[in-house]
Structure formats: C-alpha cells, structure tokens
C-alpha cells in the first residue's frame, strides 16, 4: 500500500511519539527519497512528534521513560536526515551552555532538557556534570550563548547564580531545591 506524503509525515510523528526508532528512520528515508525538503521533514515529522511528546509529558499522560524513548527515536530520524540539512545554510535559533553544577554528577534532568532544546534547533554546549564556576564562565565567554542553564539536585544551584557575569545572559535553573519548579528563569536585564 502506497502512503501519501501527508500520511508519511504523520507516521514519522506518531512513530516518534511511540518511541519506534527504526520506523522513524524508515519514514524519514522514504520522505527524503520522495524529494521532500529536509526542513519540512524535520518540522512536520520529527519536531511535530517531539512537541506532542512534550505536551503529553506536561499533562502527565506520559512519563520520563516514554520521553527518553521518543527522544532516541528522534535521534534515529535525525541521523538519517542530518546529511541533507547540513548545508542548508540555516543557523541554529540560539545557543545554550548547559551543565550540572559542581558538587553534583546527576544528569538525567539535564539530558532531558538538552533533548528538548535540540529538538527545537537550539545548539546545546553540554559541559556535563560536576561543572565548576570557572568552567561555566569560560564556556560563556567562549561561546557567548543566549542562555546558560544549570541543573543540580542540591542547593548549589543557588550559588550558581553567582556565575552570571554577562550582560544579556539568561540564566535558567532546574533543581529540586526549587520545590517542584523545574525551570525558573532569572534575567539580569529582562528583555
């Protein structure tokens, strides 16, 4: 049975939501073979699927494992698609420096945030875990990102605010220390 292009876009999105990595890759391959623009495959297939995952996660319809499985399916689709979008001349919508602060080596929350950001075409400079203030500052100076994001289960996040040194930097923190507020933004100069 021959699927229409519309059906294939929908299938890519749905398979991604259900975490069927192989099928996502196959849908993307088929859409490429049919000459669909890579940008359209990304937006109408993969990103659309990941947006739905984000909404269902927000509404407690699915949970962390389902999000991780979907994110891996997204990566599988991206691996097929990437060679075709490398040279489209478009830049990422922005850059984020991301890390878990010194004194903490947990990374599940940080990685989830990274996956969500990357699905939105944000370039993430992931510094990993147990990241010192000096390393954050160095990365911010090196990359000049719009956002620095820090995650930690300890109240070290509060101390991480002191890392801010750049005028227009948005700081985003996620921590149990915030009593359930997973992400809170602190703008030095709100825009």
């Amino acid at each position: 049975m021959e699927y229409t292009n519309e059906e294939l876009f929908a299938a890519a999105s749905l398979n991604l939501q259900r975490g069927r990595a192989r099928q996502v890759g196959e849908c993307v391959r088929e859409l490429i073979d049919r000459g669909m623009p890579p940008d359209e495959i990304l937006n109408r297939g993969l990103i659309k699927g990941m947006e739905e995952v984000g909404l269902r996660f927000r509404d407690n319809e699915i949970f962390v494992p389902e999000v991780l499985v979907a994110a891996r399916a997204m990566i599988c689709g991206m691996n097929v698609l990437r060679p075709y979008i490398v040279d489209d001349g478009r830049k990422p919508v922005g850059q984020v420096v991301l890390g878990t602060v010194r004194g903490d080596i947990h990374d599940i929350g940080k990685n989830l945030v990274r996956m969500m950001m990357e699905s939105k075409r944000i370039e993430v400079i992931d510094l990993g875990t147990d990241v010192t203030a000096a390393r954050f500052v160095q990365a911010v100076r090196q990359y000049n990102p719009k956002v620095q994001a820090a995650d930690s289960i300890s109240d070290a996040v509060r101390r991480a605010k002191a890392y801010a040194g750049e005028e227009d930097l948005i700081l985003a923190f996620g921590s149990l220390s915030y009593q359930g507020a997973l992400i809170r933004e602190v703008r030095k100069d709100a825009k």
Partner: protein
Amino acid sequence: MTSKERVRMALALEKPDRVPIDYSSNKTVNRRLMDALGLGINATQDDLYELLGVDFRGIGARYIGPALFPERPGMKVNPEYGYYSRWIENEFGGYDDFCYFPLKDAEPEEIEAFPAPDPDDYDYSAVAEQVKKYKDKAIYVGNAGMPDIINSMGRVMGMEDALVNLQLGDEATMVWVEKKTNSELGRMERLLEAIKKAGGEADFMWMGEDLGTQIAPMISMELFNRVFRPVHQKFIDLAKSYGIPTMIHTCGCSSWSYESFIEMGMKAVDTLQPEAVNMSPAYLKEHFGGRLAFHGCISTAQIATMSAEDIDKICKQTLETLMPVGGYCFAPTHMIQDNTPVENIVAMYNAAHKYGVY
C-alpha cells in the same frame, strides 16, 4: 512499652504509647550532631539512637564473597553490585556519587552476564549477636535500596539506559533484574532464617523503589504493572511467609502506586516527601489512612532550611494530622542532609517526644 511493641502496634495501624521514631543522616551531619550532643569519639551510633529515642534497628549480613567487579583508579567499587563511586564534596560535606557505569551502551550478552552476588557469600554468623543486642528494638531486614530496580540499574548502566531498557522491556535487562532479585530474595531468606534460629523475630521487611519525581509519577502504571509489580510482590510474599509485614520506600510523588501496593499486601509506606505532589500528610491521611502505616513525612529539605521554631510547628502539624488515624512512625524523608543545622535536628526530635505521645 518496648520499641518492638511500639512499632508492631503502629504497623498494625494501632496507637501505641507514643509514635515510633526513626533516624537517618549523612555521615558529616551525624558526626556534628553527636558532637553537639556531647557524644564523644568513643560513642556509638546506638548511643545516639538511645538519646533520640530511635525505635528501629536494621539487621544485616556482611558480604564476604569474592570481588565480582574490578577496581578502577580513583573510584570505590561496591563488590556485590558493581556500583562505582567517588567522593563528591560540597561545602557542607559530600556524597559518594556514582561515576562509572559498566553497562552503559553494553551489548545484551554483557548485560545478561553481569553478575549478582551469591546469597551464600554473606556472613550470617553475626546475626545472633545483633538479635540479642536489639531484642527490645523493632528489627527489620532489607532497606530502601532493595530491589530499587530503577536506581540500581541506573547505577550500572546510567539512568537513561535504565529507563529506556525498562520501557522497551529489553530482554537482557529483564534477565539481569531477575538474577539480582533472586540474589536479594535469597539473602533475605537466609537472614530471616538466621534471626529465627537465634530466637529472635524480625518485625518487618524494608524494600524500596523511587516511583515519583517531585511533581509526577516517574513511570506509567503500565510499566509498573508489567515490570515492577511482579518483582515487588515476591518480596512481600517472602515477608508474609515469615509472618512479617513489608514497608516500601518510595521517593517523590508516589501515592499513585499505593492502591496497587495495598492490593499486593503492602502494610507500610516510607519516605512520604510532603513537598511532592499528592504526598502531604493531609492527602495521605485522607486517601490511605487506616489502610497503610506511614513512616517518614518530615522533610529533610525543610529541616535543612527552616528555623528551629518552624520545624517545631511543622512536626507538630504532621503529628496532629497523622497520629489520630494510627500507624504513623516519625522519621525524616531521607537521610538528614549535611547542610542541616544541628539545632534543627534537635528541634525535630524534641517535637517528636513533645507532641508524639498518645
């Protein structure tokens, strides 16, 4: 009333002379507390427990088998389960945190072949002495880290792989979960036999599974029923065969699983982080009061950051809410953290004795 009698009554949802009291803390703050209370370098942990009125004591067996996992430079390795950690300092103390994951991105054959300790490789000979020493205390076997499928898998393959493999029902992972479960069940059985042989009686089995984030379930009910419930049931059934109840530790927003646990024969739930969604004392009382005993509910996040006066108030409120329904055991929600002022801990335990009397 002895500690044993007190805890037994609480686990049976009855009202003893006062609420049973438990304690758990990080090493650094534990030492600071002992110093502040005048317990010198020669004092034992039991001395502190006596001072605080702690009713609970765990009985265990030390692993004496071969090291199942190689050493790695700069890391500590748990010889039974292959958890690699290193000391991560913070300004108040620190944690042995997990830093190397031997099964990360592993092939199915490697996961299946990952060893689990032989239940015979533990020293059960010290059990008799512990039974004698703690004859009037409430004694338990197991701990919050058993089977703790999510965390124990996370420690060897990283949390991402662990959750993905569980969600996908990865066959090799399931083989390893079963192997580890059987090892733990075997150890519990031998421990309970050793306690019986020593003329003692365990009062309950303690198990754990962190089933919630701060704001939501960690996993779906479908995954819980498919993977976790059958494993957890084995522990409950083993305890039941020795005539003792089971208590499960469940961090975070976990009350979504409690109806299932009641169906499975679970008698008590532990940790009960009041700041997590659907975990407040009032919520727990309304939904599960008189059907489950409660252990915990004094937030370690709050006692680290509140004033001693506010801690007194919040402990009083918690006790006033949960005591009338029966079955409440006063305890911190986690190990008391290193950034907690000792006067706050003192306020917490003073409140337990002041307001926890029936």
